[in-house]
């Protein structure tokens, strides 16, 4: 199992994920949200195609004073 397969949510999780975040959507809004799922999956698959090695602190160099 690749990293992204393990981590990327399935479409059927959508309602539960939103509910766990405290969001209650109408059936119509939920239907619209479902249309974004393929693009969200694709984005995450691209991001998890990268294997980052070495130092793993992710925020270095983001704000100049942290650089």
């Amino acid at each position, binding site marked *: 199992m690749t990293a992204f397969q393990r981590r990327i949510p399935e479409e059927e999780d959508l309602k539960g994920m939103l509910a766990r975040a405290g969001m209650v959507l109408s059936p119509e809004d939920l239907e619209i949200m479902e249309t974004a799922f393929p693009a969200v999956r694709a*984005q995450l698959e*691209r991001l998890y195609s990268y294997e980052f090695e070495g130092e793993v602190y992710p925020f270095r160099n983001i704000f100049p004073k942290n650089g």
Partner: protein
Amino acid sequence: MSTDALCYLNISEAAALIRDRKLSPVELTKAHIERIDRLNPEIKAYVTRTDEQALADARVAESDINAGHYRGALHGIPVSFKDLYDTAGTRTTGQSKVFADRVPAEDSASVASIRKAGAVTLGKVALAEFGLGGSPTSLFETPSNPWNLDYSPGGSSSGSGAALAAGLCMGSFGTDTGGSLRNPGHCSGIVGLKPTLGRVSRFGVIPCSWSLDTVGPMARTVGDVALLLQAVAGHDPRDPSSADRPVPDYPAALGGSIEGLRVGVARDYFFRTDLGADPEVVQCAEEAIAVLRELGASIEEVSVPSVADARSAQMVIMHAEAFAYHRQFLRDRPGDYGPVRFRFWLGALYTAEDYLQANLFRRQIVSEVDDVLKKVDLIVTPTMPRPAPPGGDSSPFGTLTGLNFLAPFNLTGTPAVSVPCGFTSGGLPVGLQIAGRWFDEATVLRAANAYEEAAPWSEMHPDL
């Protein structure tokens, strides 16, 4: 001078006249108010007008100048602010019903700096809801593109772009989380500068994404953007991202030659018509690069290997952070949001791991761009792959996939400007994006200014 001519003066031109007492700030402000009266019903750039305060401020400016207390190039100059910037005593809504009645007690840092410089605030201008949504919004109308009213002026700083192109202010301030200063620069044919993250204080600006939000100036010329940047750049301990770095003299940096400047062009991504970039947009950018070469710049091929995935990382970070800010409002008052709520809800779908993975990617692209900027001084691209989109209701999620030329420089935090570089055959403006090293806005602006002087697209105005 006619009202139209007054309203299309550059800041530097108007400033010289005001300084020499050949132009009254009151006359200049009245000219803008009259023009806003006439054109705003169609352009819809202003969402809150402060005519009385503007005239009062203009009278004070005139009185001060007549008394010999001229403050500098922005004294008496009419400007506007995106309706994310807190303005003491004047509502700041984010163009959302959620904040419809929100009246800040204190000015944001940029508003305070601009007031201190003596500029006259004409009002608050439109935006995509909370700087993230498309069209429609839950409060106020969506602006039209002055070059063609059927098209969008770009966003999310849409009102700033539309107001400048229509001659409804001389300078404006917007924000850029995923391209929102440069996108309207491209779509509306004006100049939009995203400064280095940390260069300009974000204090008092409603956030969209804490680690990506950047505030900055927009105007019709590069020189005017330099004047506006000068007034707001600098350290502010009230903003944790603010950098304590010296601020150079930006207007003074514009005059130099670009002979020998090394300009990087990444044709393996930013010029790919086979991936969906519009051939006319690419052609305009190629012609602009030829002008830079004629001006003495050295054009070099470069590559940012992971650039194609920058938008994915930027969206994960932006949506996750935006959701965190809006979570309580979304839970309690979802009906007060327009379609932007769908974009915020995307942030609930990401895990902590996703957010960290996106930030690890961010570190990687920071490193890649740093490597490129050790070999060249600047990276030049078309600002966007395509010209302004048609107006009207947009997709609830915007563009989640496809080419994106703006997001890479949000992730890196490096400065980037959009300067007009031509028009499509359909009459829509096209922008050239010039990105540079951290805190080197001076070189970015110098190159943009040299190009603008050689190819004065900024002298063209829409027929309104």
